[in-house]
């Protein structure tokens, strides 16, 4: 390994950086009474949420409950109408574009279907953030990328194009790309969507392992209850724009809350009704016969 | 595709594009004729006929400049034509200008006939001797008028 010493040095530098920032006890992400609306349609109505370093947090909820919006607010893609979103001590609503970009260099995000750049090879995809944001020599970038790919078990696929990967492999490459800059905060948007059980298990384990290895904070938006409860440290349940329940996986499993109970046990009917609101069937039949 | 092949193709493309431009400039358009410094002289005409801006200015059949502008003098009621002459050609100060037509129905141009003066034309000078355009309608009218005047005389 010709450049091993240099890589070791760069890792050591990064490690010291973590020691410095990790010593402060302040949370990585903090949301206080956050409200958000698309025009007239209110999506979030006063959300509080806190994520600390080293934590893997899941945000769960049904489709259209506002959990993806929540993730976008944390990533700075959307701005809250009211309340405060703080990431690494910085209030997102007060940041200029360049300051937001500076903050995003310390964030990684895994998109629902990976969002790999289709015109670049796997290696170039993972190297993309390194090449854009650092002046590291080409061979060091290459070695770093291979190490990241090795961590997700895909070092052998470095030369492939994204179109040649299976869904699960693409997700793992995207994961390697999301953590390429050793981020402080990693956001996962539906990391398990559309994966077979084996890939799902692998991806879940990787998310947990990477979070612990990086000492980062991770937020995962998902509706895959059983897998998530086995992985995460803390769960927030979102429904209709508010947090309806929160707790550790054990507390969630034992929860008596009807909504959580329905969700965890995947019951078809409960607080989340099976039927879309409609006039009673009887009135319809009567109207037809009359 | 590797970087070098891509660079090569783009290099060929750009070179071919510029080659086409050079071809258009040199072979198709008379690039050499219209470059270089020019100097302007003016001339007044009673009638310029169908003369247009950018029409050629020729001397002995050779293009020596272009018509730079056409105006109207409100006091003398004559047309004022600005000639942009190529800096490499010099003409005596008493050169005369006439508006001519190439062929029977061709475009109109200005012909310069060099005089014998010792001093040469300078930028801003005015040509004193001019000959207006031959207007075909006037010519025909004159011809018919003459014919009409002739006929009664021979009848007597």
């Amino acid at each position, binding site marked *: 390994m010709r450049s091993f010493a240099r890589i070791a040095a760069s890792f050591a530098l990064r490690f010291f950086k973590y020691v410095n920032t990790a010593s402060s006890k302040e949370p990585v992400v903090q949301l206080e009474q956050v409200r958000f609306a698309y025009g007239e349609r209110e999506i979030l109505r006063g959300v509080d949420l806190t994520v600390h370093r080293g934590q893997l947090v899941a945000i769960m909820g049904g489709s259209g409950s506002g959990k993806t919006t929540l993730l976008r607010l944390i990533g700075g893609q959307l701005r809250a109408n009211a309340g405060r979103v703080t990431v690494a001590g910085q209030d997102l609503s007060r940041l200029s574009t360049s300051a937001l970009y500076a903050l995003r260099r310390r964030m990684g995000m895994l998109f629902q279907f990976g*969002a790999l750049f289709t015109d670049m090879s796997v290696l170039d995809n993972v190297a993309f953030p390194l090449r854009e944001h650092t002046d590291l020599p080409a061979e060091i970038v290459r070695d770093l990328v291979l190490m990241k790919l090795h961590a997700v078990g895909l070092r052998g696929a470095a030369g492939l194009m994204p179109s040649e990967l299976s869904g699960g492999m693409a997700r793992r490459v995207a994961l390697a790309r999301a953590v390429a800059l050793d981020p402080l905060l990693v956001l996962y948007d539906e990391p398990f969507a559309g994966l077979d059980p084996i890939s799902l298990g692998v991806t879940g384990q990787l998310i947990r392992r990477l979070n612990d290895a990086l000492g980062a904070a991770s937020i995962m938006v998902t509706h895959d209850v059983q897998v998530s409860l086995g992985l995460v440290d803390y769960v927030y349940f979102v429904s209709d724009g508010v947090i309806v329940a929160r707790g550790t996986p054990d507390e969630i499993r034992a929860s008596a809350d009807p909504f959580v109970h329905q969700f965890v046990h995947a019951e078809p009917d409960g607080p989340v009704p099976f039927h879309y609101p409609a006039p009673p069937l009887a009135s319809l039949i009567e109207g037809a016969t009359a | 595709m590797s970087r070098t092949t891509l660079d090569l193709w783009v290099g060929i493309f750009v070179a071919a594009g510029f080659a086409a431009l050079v071809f258009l400039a040199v072979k198709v358009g008379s690039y050499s*004729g219209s470059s270089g410094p020019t100097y302007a002289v003016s001339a007044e005409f009673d009638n310029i006929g169908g003369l247009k801006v950018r029409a050629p200015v020729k001397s002995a059949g050779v293009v020596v400049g272009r018509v730079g502008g056409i105006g109207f003098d409100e006091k003398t009621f004559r047309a004022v034509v600005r000639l942009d002459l190529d800096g490499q050609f010099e003409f005596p100060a008493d050169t005369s200008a006439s508006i001519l037509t190439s062929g029977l129905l061709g475009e109109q141009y200005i012909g310069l006939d060099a005089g014998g003066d010792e001093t040469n034309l300078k930028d801003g000078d005015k040509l004193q001797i001019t000959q207006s355009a031959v207007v075909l309608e006037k010519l025909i009218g004159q011809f018919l008028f003459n014919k009409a005047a002739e006929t009664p005389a021979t009848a007597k």
Partner: protein
Amino acid sequence: MNAFGELLRKIGALTIDGIWRLGFASRFFVAVLRYSGQSFRRLPLTIREIYFSGVLSLLIILVSGLFVGMVLGLQGYDILQRFGSSDALGIMVALSLLRELGPVVAGLLFASRAGSAVTAEIGLMKTTEQLQAMDMMAVNPVARVVAPRFWGGVISMPLLAAMFSAMGIFGGWLIGVVAIGVDDGAFWSQMSASVDFRYDVVNGVVKSFVFGVAVSLIAVFEGYDCQPTAEGVSRAITRTVVSSALVILALDFVLTSFMFRGL
């Protein structure tokens, strides 16, 4: 009465929507220019796009240019020989190509070959969240994706138009001189005597440059602005081709009336 009111409301909505899009496109244009620095500092990005919009359009441009020139040779000869001035064939072919057909036809071909490809590419990147992913990696997608494609098109277009015109003149020469038998010397000398470099050649290049800016802007804008669905991308591609064609023809009229009014 109610239907009439509905019609008026529709016209109003269309107008407002049109103005809104125009405003958005102008702001987008400013943003593209503002973030263009990177496309020149990191030249490989732009060179790649010149390859995709320029080099890959070469074949269609050269073949079309040859055929357009050959048709001009045939038609021009037929018309000019009625007036006994078939020697002027070179002038006619060269002026038609340099002033009008070169920039306009090359622009239309460029819009349907390269413009649609750029719209499709950017639209698909948006649909598959690649642009968002880039934004989340603190890389501005306008600077990294849009601006190089814009400049690639702007640089390619005048070169393609010049090649189209040159190829067309060659086609006209092939038909006029080689096939029909117009005098070779007369063809070239008459041509170079009445084609003016600044007036005809440069104005043609200016036209093709303006068309290049317009087509490239429309292509990147429609791609960036498309609905992120398969249907949205296909509609954006159609809009790129249609509005490019309309804008080229309208701009051509405006530019021609400014450039060639004196003659």
